């Protein structure tokens, strides 16, 4: 058995945000290291220069001081005029290493035991030594390294502080920038995500980055091919329906003519049964083709249509086919509700809901249809209360709430397939709202995307 591990998709926005932040941070650290390194060298040069300059300035004064003494070999410590931190300390020694002069805070232990010329360092101090009077006097100045280190550290910290602010700012900035740059791609994604299964219209490519446009165009091309394939299938279904309906119509008309010619009796009863069978065959073939269309997609049209005028036409037609049935239609005053649902899909939906109401409603009671200005269709018929568990199953194929009524249990399944395909919503209520019994189907067309 082989196990395949699928890698979790990465967010482009997150990847770019983190990547850009990391890159900027690393670049900043690299630049900071370089700045610290260069500054450290320059500071050392500066401090060394000050050290040498100080030694060369003190040496002549020390020579004069020592020569003018009564006892030149006696050691002397220079007292300070005023209390202060003494960063630079010095020793003036003769060529034997005897201390002749020292600054007030100088600790001889930190100095080199041998008399060295020029710069040198110990672990704690930096030294500079020079000789004078034919190498009989030697001065050595010491400077603690902590001072240099503190200066460099302070400089490095002052450069690091912005980085602490820079990291979150860079992350937020790059996040906002990436999000702004990807806004058209995100809009493209949202448009595709929000589509119902029946929406095969092309997606807008305006504003997309040039790298994404070929993908979007390929998707549109694919949608177009799919749309054409579905239209071809629909055309085939429509033609098949025509081919199937015509012989059924012929057989039905012929049997009706025969019934007119024979007197009442067993032969006419048999003919009545044949007529019923033919009607059932006609109805079943029609429902199956409607279901195929409803589940086949292509349920939205590129152009919006006025659902109210279509509804009027369908209801008028249904009233003519069922002259004995009272059908009431309540419409909003503006008589216009534009929607992208395909007119043929809408007609199939309404016919099935209406047929369901007429077939399963109480015969003598009216079927009440209303369409609101907000795009909500309600069809109410008188009926006994349908249990909730039965209501939940009515969307399934071949399920009927009332088995005593002739029907195939496909009408509401077809309606459900169309409603789901176009992105509308359909609810069943029993008892009908505001009544003790009855059945109501409510379809909200406002959720269909234009």
């Amino acid at each position, binding site marked *: 058995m082989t196990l395949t591990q699928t890698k979790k998709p990465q967010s482009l926005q997150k990847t770019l945000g983190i990547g850009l932040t990391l890159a900027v941070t690393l670049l900043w650290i690299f630049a900071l290291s370089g700045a610290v390194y260069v500054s450290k060298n320059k500071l050392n040069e500066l401090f060394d220069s000050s050290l040498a300059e100080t030694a060369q300035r003190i040496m002549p004064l020390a020579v004069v001081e020592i020569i003018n003494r009564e006892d030149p070999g006696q050691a002397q410590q220079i007292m300070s005029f005023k209390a202060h931190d003494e960063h630079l300390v010095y020793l003036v020694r003769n060529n034997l290493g005897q201390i002749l002069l020292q600054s007030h805070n100088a600790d001889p232990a930190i100095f080199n035991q041998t008399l060295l010329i020029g710069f040198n360092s110990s672990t704690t101090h930096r030294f500079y030594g020079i000789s004078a009077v034919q190498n009989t006097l030697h001065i050595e100045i010491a400077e603690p390294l902590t001072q240099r280190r503190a200066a460099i550290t302070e400089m490095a910290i002052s450069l690091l502080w912005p980085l602490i602010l820079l990291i979150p700012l860079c992350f937020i900035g790059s996040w906002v920038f990436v999000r702004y740059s990807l806004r058209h791609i995100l809009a493209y994604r949202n448009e595709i995500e929000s589509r119902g299964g029946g929406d095969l219209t092309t997606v807008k490519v305006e504003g997309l980055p040039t790298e994404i446009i070929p993908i979007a165009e390929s998707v549109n091309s694919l949608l177009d091919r799919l749309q054409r394939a579905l239209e071809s299938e629909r055309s085939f279904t*429509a033609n098949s*329906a*025509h*081919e*199937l*309906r*015509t*012989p*059924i*119509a*012929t*057989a*039905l*008309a*012929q049997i*009706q*003519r025969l019934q*007119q010619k024979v007197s009442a009796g067993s032969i006419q009863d048999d003919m009545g049964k044949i007529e019923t069978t*033919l*009607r059932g065959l*006609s109805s079943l073939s*029609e429902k199956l083709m409607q279901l195929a269309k409803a589940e086949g997609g292509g349920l939205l049209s590129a152009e919006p249509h006025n659902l109210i005028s*279509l509804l009027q*036409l*369908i209801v008028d*037609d249904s009233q*003519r*086919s069922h002259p004995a049935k009272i059908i009431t239609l309540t419409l909003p005053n503006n008589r216009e509700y534009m929607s992208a649902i395909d*007119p*043929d899909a*809408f*007609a199939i939906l309404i016919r099935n809901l209406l047929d369901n109401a007429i077939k399963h409603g109480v015969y003598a009671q009216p079927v009440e249809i209303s369409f609101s200005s907000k795009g909500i269709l309600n069809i109410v018929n008188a009926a006994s209360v349908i249990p909730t568990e039965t209501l939940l199953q009515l969307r399934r194929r071949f399920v009927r709430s009332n088995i005593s009524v002739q029907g195939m249990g496909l009408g509401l399944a077809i309606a459900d397939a169309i409603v789901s395909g176009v992105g509308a919503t359909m609810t069943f209520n029993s008892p009908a709202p505001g009544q003790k019994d009855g059945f109501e189907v409510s379809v909200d067309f406002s959720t269909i995307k234009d």
Partner: protein
Amino acid sequence: MRILLVEDTEGLGEVIQDQIADEGHAVDWVKCISNAEASLSTTHYDLLLLDLMLPDGSGIDLLKKIRKAGEATPVIILTARDQISDRINGLNAGADDYLVKPFDLSELSARIAAVSRRYAGNPNPKVYIGTLEIDLTKHIISRDGVVVNLTAREWALLEAFIQRPGTLLSKSQLEDHLYAFGSEIESNTIEVYISRLRKKLGKDQLETVRGMGYRMGLSGPGST
């Protein structure tokens, strides 16, 4: 009524023709657009029953053509195409009604009657002429409250007058109304049916204008 049926399916066309003829109408049945155009160019029809998918073209195109020519003949489309877009196209092209196959023959008869009433300017199925009360839907006529039985041919002749109340109709017009192409008509057939109608409805109901023809609806008071 003189009706032109355009239907290419042999069995269905035959049954529709028989059904309508039994109701007293004269039906000419053609199976393609070219024959339909030929019939329309030579004969006045009161109604056209039109299939859409015909061997030499679309019925919609024929409908558009006759409407463009200013022809106001009522048209009922009989088709297996049940999509609402087809129906809208048909009605936009000038059809008066649209019946999807398979249909009941009784529904076809009712639609024919409804369309012809609409064209006669009186959509009400009940017509009152003097002492006559005529229910065009149920084919019931009563004279002074007494039901009178008419044959299909007598009904067809009566309908011709009801559709054109007060209009003088010539003998040849009435023959065209009652008989299809190829029907054998006796020279005195119209006179025979006029005579029968007068006996059943009253001799004053139908007026003879010598050498010109016949008319109905002027003699009876309170005609509606």
